[in-house]
């Protein structure tokens, strides 16, 4: 198995899927000549030409809509947003067009499209460039949402997303692009809707996705070393649909859960996870389920303040201590 960066794993998925299906094309800002704002599309223009690797003007609403229209016309567009912060300009196309046309046409017009790009905060980019949109996007029926944490999952989930006959949101992470990991070559598919136990444990389940998987794993290490607590790290991978059976199975093992998420606390994705747990695993719980989220503020620029605002292993450990009644 090759060791790849998350970035190259995505590149590999795109390349393989474009080789496999001539209807797949990539469209977005800087994807072609510039080789991608984050170099995810490196080398693809050379291999597939400008009809399939399409540079766009800075017009998120416009090119997202062109993507949806192209999907209506039988293609399989992959629309890259330089970041999801800019995709907010295209929400009308994602929410009102991509997610609804199949339903309002009575099933006549499927929209097989991928919207992808980095989501959430990187480092010191300030409030407008540091937002996690998963709760917004996961709210919409008609969309699927995935958020891979590892290079292997990035490849496997992007391939699944491209082959899916529905609009699929792929939430990547600027801070993840350089992460390395083993990635199976060729046909490596991670089905949408399957969570993954990244670390088994007995005492508490840390439910996380994307960048918070690393936070949870670090917290789990420290909990094992310092507190003798065995934490299970469950990577959701798909945020819509949620792998409810996996969540419930893990909580049944540990009886306690802490959700670690990147977004803001109010009406966040974790609230949905907590809802599933309280509804379906009520009698399994030995403690209330807690959430560790981003602070309920626009992201500050200052490095120390930004660190305070983000979910951290320390805050995860504090939450775990509470659900284990260690305080």
């Amino acid at each position, binding site marked *: 198995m090759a060791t790849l960066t998350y970035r190259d794993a995505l590149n590999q998925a795109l390349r393989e899927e474009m080789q496999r299906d001539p209807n797949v*094309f990539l469209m977005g800002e800087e994807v072609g000549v510039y080789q991608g704002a984050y170099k995810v599309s490196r080398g693809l223009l050379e291999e597939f030409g400008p*009809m399939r690797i*399409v540079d*766009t*003007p800075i*017009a998120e*609403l*416009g*090119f*997202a*809509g*062109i*993507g*949806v*229209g*192209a*999907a*209506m*016309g*039988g*293609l399989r*567009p992959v629309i890259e947003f330089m970041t999801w912060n800019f995709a907010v300009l295209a929400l*009308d*196309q994602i929410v*009102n*067009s991509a997610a609804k*046309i*199949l*339903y*309002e*046409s*009575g*099933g*006549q*017009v*499927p*929209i*097989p499209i991928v919207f992808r790009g980095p989501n959430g905060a990187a480092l010191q980019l300030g409030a407008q460039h540091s937002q996690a949109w998963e709760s917004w996007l996961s709210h919409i*029926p*008609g969309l*699927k949402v995935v958020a891979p944490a590892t290079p292997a999952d990035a490849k496997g989930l992007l391939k699944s997303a491209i082959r899916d*006959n*529905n609009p699929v949101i792929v939430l990547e992470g600027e801070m993840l692009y350089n992460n390395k990991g083993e990635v199976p070559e060729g046909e490596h598919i991670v089905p949408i809707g399957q969570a993954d136990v990244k670390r088994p444990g007995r005492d508490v389940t840390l439910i996380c996705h994307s960048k918070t998987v690393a936070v949870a794993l670090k917290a789990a290490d420290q909990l094992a070393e310092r507190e003798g607590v065995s934490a299970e790290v469950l990577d959701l991978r798909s945020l819509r649909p949620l792998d409810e059976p996996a969540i419930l199975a893990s909580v049944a093992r540990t009886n306690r859960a802490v959700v670690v998420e990147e977004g803001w606390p109010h009406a966040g994705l974790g609230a949905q996870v907590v809802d599933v747990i309280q509804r379906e695993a009520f009698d399994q719980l030995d403690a209330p389920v807690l959430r560790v989220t981003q602070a309920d503020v626009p992201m500050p620029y200052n490095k120390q303040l930004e660190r305070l605002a983000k979910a951290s292993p320390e805050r995860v450990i504090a939450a775990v201590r509470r659900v284990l009644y260690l305080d």
Partner: protein
Amino acid sequence: MATATAQTATRTAQTALEPRMLRQMLLIRRFEEKAAEAYALGKIGGFCHLYIGQEAVAVGSLAALRDDDYVISSYREHGQALARGVSAKAVMAELFGKATGCSSGKGGSMHLFDAGKRFLGGHGIVGGHIPLAAGLGFAIRYKGGDQLCICYFGEAAVNIGAFHETLNMASVYKLPVIFCCENNRYGMGTAFERVAAVTDVVEHACSYDMAAELVNGMDVLAVHAATQRAVERARKGGHPTLLEVRTYRYMGHSMSDPLHGVYRTKEEVEEQRKRDPISQLAMKLKEEGALDQAALDALDAEVHAEVEEAVRFADQSPDPDPAELTTHVLAD
């Protein structure tokens, strides 16, 4: 000689086309009148935007298209659906929310779809479907086809960002799209000149280096001719065209809005009615001797019957099965 033959052939095609266009316009007129009646009886719910007065736009333009071209529209799209050949039954049943509707009762007045006829909606957000038209044009170009996509929207949509982003990209990518702006002068109750710095929509094409034409929308033949020129542009080089078709809506913005009042006068509406596209074409055909009053009355009766049948069909059709609530959220 060859030229004369070609001219004769054109005239013959035209003589077949004009009564057909008259019939289509009349069908739309009677259909919409019936829809207004059904709305008043509570058989149609929600928003319902009627096309009365604008019939020549849909009919004249769609007569210039092929069956494998794409059609996409805004929420005032009953006319385009009917002119595209979606049956009056299927459209009326959709307005009634019935399982037999062209969108299985899930779309309603604003979301008419018929994929087989390449009629792709029916979109409810002003201007939101304009980029979709470019996307359909992109798919055509991507596959190397010579089809095109026609996109209908009102003049009010010209003030939306999506219009400008799309025209720019359609021009940059040379997409085979006809942007057909139906300028009926009012965005709901706001006169266009009150909210637009440039009141000739057609002028926006200059910003995007796009071909454009200003068309009399009360003259179905003029609409048809202008569309034909745009079609040719699209098929040959994949070039987009912006058509500004000046038309007039006799009814309120939707069934829940007044015909006139604060934003326009009754006299203005009456004045516009004198330019009625159906009367104009009927008069022309009568003058040419192609149609007499008896034939016109017979045509009207035939169209009436078709609409009555559509209402009967819609009335008698079943509601969607409750299980349909959760189907078509996601494709398999």
